[in-house]
C-alpha cells in the first residue's frame, strides 16, 4: 500500500474497487488487525487500530473473502463460539445466535455440522458471525464472489437492509455493477494507490465522452464492425455477443446513422439502446484494465470478472 488516505462516513456503504492484486484485501487486513501496517495510522469509530486495537475491534465485524467458518462445528456452535470471542454473556449470545440464524434462514439446520453446507449457506453463517456482537461497522471482502445468483441476491438484499438499519459497510469488490448498485461512495484502488474517491454517479460523469449506442441486427456480416466504425462521431466499435457497442460522444447522430445504415442495407434492427457511461468505464479509464473484445485475447482472464453494463434508464 502506498500512502492511501480515505474516510468512511457513518451509515454509508463504502465500496473499495480495484483489480486483483490492487491492495483491497491488504487494506482490510490492516484495518481489521490481521496485519500490522509498517507506517501510517487508521481509526475505527474514533479508536486507533494499533494503540486501541481491542476497542477498535469491538466496533467491527468482518466477513473475509473466504468463508472462514469452523467446518467441524455446527452453525449454532460457530455463532456461540464467536459470541465467546466477544465475551458476550451466555444468555445474550444464545439469544443473538438464535435471532441471527432465524434472520438468515438457517435455524432449522443450526445443529448440523457446517461442513455439509453449500457455499452460499457458509457465506450466510460467516456474515451472521460478523454480526454477533452488533457491530457498527461491517467489513465485507468480496462478499458475493463465487456464489450462485440466488445467494448473491440474498446477500445483497441483506446488506441493504442492514445498512438501512444504520450499519456502516466497507465493501471490497471487483464486481463493478455491485459497487455501482450498492455504494454511497466508491474508492478505486490500483497498484496500492487510491486513484479516485467519489459517489458512483459523479464518477460516471467524469467520463461523459464514453457514451455509447448498443445495436443488434437480425443478420450480421463480417464487414459490419468496420462499416459501423465509419459512422460520424464513432470513436470505437466493440462487439459484445450478438450486439455492437458504438462508443461516441454524440449518441443522437449515431442513432440517425444506424437507422440509415439499416435502411440502406435492408437490415432489420432488433435492439437499439443508448448507454450512459458506467462505473466500469471509470474503472477501465483509471486502471487500464478493459473488457475483452475481439482480438484482445490477452485480457480475457482479467475481464471475465467484469459484469455487463446495464442500459441507462
Amino acid at each position, binding site marked *: 500500500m502506498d500512502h492511501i488516505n480515505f474516510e468512511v462516513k457513518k451509515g454509508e456503504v463504502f465500496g473499495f474497487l480495484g483489480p486483483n492484486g490492487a491492495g483491497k484485501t491488504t487494506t482490510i*487486513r490492516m484495518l*481489521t*488487525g*490481521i*496485519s*500490522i501496517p*509498517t507506517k501510517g495510522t487508521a481509526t475505527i469509530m474514533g479508536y486507533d487500530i494499533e494503540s486501541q486495537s*481491542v*476497542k477498535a*475491534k*469491538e466496533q*467491527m465485524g*468482518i466477513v*473475509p473473502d*473466504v468463508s*472462514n*467458518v*469452523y*467446518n*467441524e*462445528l455446527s452453525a449454532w456452535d460457530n455463532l456461540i*463460539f*464467536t459470541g*465467546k*470471542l*466477544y*465475551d458476550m454473556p451466555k444468555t445474550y449470545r444464545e439469544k443473538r445466535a438464535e435471532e441471527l440464524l432465524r434472520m438468515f434462514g438457517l435455524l432449522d439446520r443450526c445443529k448440523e455440522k457446517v461442513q455439509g453446507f453449500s457455499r452460499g449457506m457458509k457465506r450466510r453463517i460467516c456474515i451472521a*458471525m460478523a454480526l454477533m456482537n452488533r457491530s457498527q461497522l461491517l467489513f465485507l471482502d468480496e462478499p458475493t464472489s463465487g456464489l450462485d445468483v440466488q445467494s448473491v441476491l440474498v446477500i445483497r438484499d441483506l446488506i441493504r437492509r442492514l445498512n438501512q438499519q444504520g450499519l456502516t459497510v466497507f465493501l471490497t469488490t471487483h464486481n463493478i455493477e455491485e459497487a455501482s448498485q450498492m455504494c454511497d461512495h466508491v474508492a478505486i484502488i490500483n497498484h496500492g494507490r487510491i486513484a479516485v474517491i467519489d459517489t458512483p454517479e459523479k464518477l460516471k460523469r467524469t467520463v461523459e465522452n464514453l457514451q455509447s449506442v448498443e445495436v443488434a441486427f437480425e443478420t450480421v456480416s463480417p464487414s459490419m464492425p468496420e462499416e459501423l466504425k465509419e459512422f460520424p462521431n464513432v470513436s470505437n466499435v466493440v462487439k459484445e455477443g450478438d450486439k455492437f457497442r458504438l462508443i461516441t460522444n454524440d449518441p443522437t447522430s449515431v442513432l440517425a446513422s444506424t437507422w440509415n445504415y439499416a435502411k440502406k442495407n435492408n437490415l432489420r434492427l432488433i435492439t437499439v439502446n443508448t448507454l450512459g457511461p458506467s462505473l466500469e468505464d471509470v474503472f477501465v479509464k483509471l486502471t487500464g484494465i478493459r473488457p475483452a473484445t475481439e482480438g484482445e485475447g490477452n485480457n480475457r482472464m482479467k475481464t471475465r470478472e467484469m459484469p455487463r453494463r446495464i442500459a441507462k434508464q
Partner: protein
Amino acid sequence: MSNVHSSHYGKEIRVAWAIAVKDMRTYYTKPPSLMFGILFPFSLFLSFSIGRNMPLATQIPILISQTLFFASSSIGPVVIPMERANQTFDRFLTSPVSLFSILLGKTLAGIIYGAGISVIPVLVGIAFFGSQIVNIGAMIACFALSSLAFSALGIMFASIPGQTPGQVMMPLNFVRIPLLFISGVFTPIGELPTWMQVVSMLSPLTHTVELARYATGGETFFGPVLNIAILTAYAAAFLFMGIRFHIMNQRKE
C-alpha cells in the same frame, strides 16, 4: 480502576479458555495430532527401550517425559497452520482480545492434551510395573511446568508461516529429536562428560526427565529446585518469543 483491570483480565482468560475448548473439540482427534502427539512418543520409546537391560519401572519416567514433550509441543504446530489454511486464525486476530490471550488459549490446548495423555504412562506404571509416586508435588510440578514449556515451544514454532502441520513439524523435529539425546533420556546425565552435562542442563527436557524420576523415587543429577527454575524460565521465554514471532509475522504480511 482495579475493577476495570480485573474485568479486563477476566475477559482475556475467558476468551483464552473458549479458544482452548474449541481447539480441543476440533483438533484433538485430527490425524496429525494423534500421529505427532501419541504415536510418535510411544513408538520412539518402544524402539529405544525394547531389549535394553533396564527394569520397566525405571523406564516409566522416560515415557512420561517423552509423552509430555511430544504431545504438548504438537498441538500448536497442528492447529495453527490448519487454522491459517482455513483462515480461521484470522478470526482470533480480528476479535477484541490481545494476541497474548489467543496464544494462551492455544497453549492451554497443548497443556491439556500433553498432560492428559501423559497420565496414561503414570497409571500404566503404577498398575502394571510397580511404579510409585513418592513425591506428588514434584510430579504435579513436572506435569504443569513441562506441558506449559513444551506447549509454548510448539506455539513458538507455529509462528513459522506455513499452512500445513508438516511445514512446522519438520523444523520443530530438528530441535526435538536432538534434545532426546542430550537430556538424559537414554544415557544417565552422571555418565556424560562434563561439557555434555552443561549442554544437558540447557535442555528443558532434561529437567522434565529429572523431575519425573525424582517424583517416582529415582535419582536426580541437578536437583528439583534447579529443574523447576529452568522449566519455569523456559516456559516464560517460549511464551514471550512466541508472541514476538507472531507479531513479526503480522508485520510481514
